């Protein structure tokens, strides 16, 4: 499925490690997030250039979706403790007020959700939901907004766009619903698009189409995109940069091609084995278990599941260091 994607990259991969280039649109620095006693994100850092695409990869519970929600200000703020910085075009999102967010959400940062069928309000027509941001945020008249909405729906490949505007979400298929979500997210030409597992609720046959559509449309607009994915192969084919997360910690991050071709972290190796070697019938699953969020536990989160763990892995957290064209947090890297 992933192999069907042959997408030209926006810049030559592997040129620079993702260590906060000067022209970054977004720089997440030492982001930590606690919910009660649980440490959901632990010192996460990455950067995203203008017009580039980045994938947050990992299993469920890795904190990928939490990062996406934090980047659009939709975390339940009183219940979470946020530490670190999220610099978007120079302004720190971590300290943004709701008023600041109203100037960002939908205008400069927008989001595509996992399951379009529940992310579209069942009581309003597609047109109503698509035209609201056009009218409220861009100030278009009703007629202008309708015209623009038809163009947007045609742009995401919906046939018969005019009549789709008056349809309710449940009258569309899952793929069409996700196309509508994409049209809504792109309607205001945001600079940053967050796509939270945009294909996980869809048929395998149309997953690649949807990913490609998101990439094409963001590229056309010169926007940057963060994909949240659990499929390493799909991520590395779709995106310029990859950040591999486990239990809220960054395991390995760097240019997609470099990381996929030669993963150095045992977890990345495991993820790659899960996906790519399925044809060889030598399925090599990751040792079972799920990341625990014990707040004050030192060491690498992956250590309990890691086959090549050393004694110090459980006791001391490996620093994220630059090595061989990527950033890596591991005491005992592969090869």
């Amino acid at each position, binding site marked *: 499925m992933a192999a069907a994607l042959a997408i030209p990259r926006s810049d030559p991969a592997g040129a620079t490690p993702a260590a906060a280039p000067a022209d970054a649109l977004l720089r997440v620095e030492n982001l930590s997030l606690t919910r009660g006693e649980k440490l959901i994100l632990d010192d996460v850092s990455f950067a995203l250039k203008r017009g580039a695409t980045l994938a947050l990869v990992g299993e469920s519970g890795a904190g990928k979706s939490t990062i996406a929600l934090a980047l659009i200000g939709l975390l339940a703020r009183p219940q979470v403790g946020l530490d670190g910085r999220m610099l978007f075009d120079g302004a720190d999102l971590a300290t943004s007020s709701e008023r600041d967010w109203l100037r960002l959400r939908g205008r400069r940062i*927008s989001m595509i959700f996992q399951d379009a069928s529940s992310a579209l309000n069942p009581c309003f027509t597609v047109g109503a939901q698509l035209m609201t941001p056009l009218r409220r945020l861009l100030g278009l008249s009703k007629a202008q907004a309708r015209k623009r909405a038809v163009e947007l729906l045609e742009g995401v490949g919906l046939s018969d766009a005019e009549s789709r505007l008056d349809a*309710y979400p449940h009258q569309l298929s899952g793929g069409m619903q996700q196309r509508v979500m994409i049209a809504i997210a792109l309607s205001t030409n945001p600079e940053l698009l967050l796509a939270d597992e945009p294909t996980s609720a869809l048929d395998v046959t149309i997953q690649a189409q949807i990913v490609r559509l998101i990439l094409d449309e963001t590229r056309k607009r010169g926007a940057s995109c963060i994909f949240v994915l659990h499929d390493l192969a799909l991520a590395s084919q779709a995106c310029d940069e990859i950040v591999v997360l486990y239990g809220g910690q960054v395991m390995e991050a760097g240019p997609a091609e470099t990381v996929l071709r030669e993963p150095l972290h045992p977890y990345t190796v495991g993820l790659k084995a899960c996906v790519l070697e399925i044809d060889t019938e030598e399925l090599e699953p990751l040792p079972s278990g799920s990341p625990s969020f014990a707040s004050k536990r030192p060491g690498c989160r992956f250590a309990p599941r890691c086959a090549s763990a050393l004694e110090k892995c459980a006791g001391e957290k490996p620093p994220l260091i630059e090595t061989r064209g990527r950033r890596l947090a591991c005491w005992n890297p592969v090869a």
Partner: protein
Amino acid sequence: MAWFAARKVLQTLMVLLIVSVASFSLLKLAPGDPVQLMLGSEYSPEAHASLMAQLGLDRPVAEQYLRWLGGFLVGDWGTSFISKAPIFQYAFMEALPVTLTLAASALALAVLIGVPLGVLSATRKDTGWDAAVATLTLTGTSFPSFYLGILLIWIFGVKLALFPTLGFVAPWNDLWGGIVHMTLPAITLSTYFLAMIVRLTRANLIEALEQPYIAAARARGEPRWRVVWVHGLRNVMLPLVTILGLQLGALLQGAVLTETVFSLPGVGQMMTSAVLNREYGVVQAGVMMTACLFVLTNLAVDLAYPYLDPRLRPR
């Protein structure tokens, strides 16, 4: 859509038919001979027989039912043997509007106050405000309505003399007089529904606000108030309207008590005195009117579903 509506209407007609049979036969089976009652203690067997014939009571029961039903449909509801006035005039033209005005005012009051209170409780969940609203509405429900009515009369009618305490003024004749006379009864009747609406709105809205489409609406830049009052509340309408339709029976029951406390000449008062006087015709009229009201309201709720939730629209 037309087929859906036709089916619902047909169902409603069936229910009404059953209700009419029940209401007719219940009074057939009730003890006491209405003819005897009308003639008094001294009468001849001939007078009894002729009155029986005059009222059609010597006919087969099925024929009596059909005659009664046919008469009911065209507004020929018989004559009260106490006031000698046509029952239709008294029950439908005079008593029913009073009860409808009372019920509608109480319901409007409960919705207009209850929904915003519920919304504020949901958005300020687990705060002092939420607890205060919950306590207040629970207190309101715990009072029996007649007690609350008497309390209101004593405070606002007698002590403060702000509102009249008795009687009905038709708001379509005298709008201000009607509002003033209806204020205390409407408050009395609405408390129970107010509490119910607050709790329903709160619970359903809290659930709705956790749905992904709420996060999605916020993600596309919609301000908090629009997310709550448009996206959230729109999805609360369905359960709210359903429960309100089903609770109409309780509303009409409550109206009987309220009418008694405030001396409103409505269906409740009419029914009470008719039962005491064994005025079967009036009781029948009352039963049929309340039953129709209840069934027709629920028909309206059923027909409203497809408008409230597009997913329920038949293809």
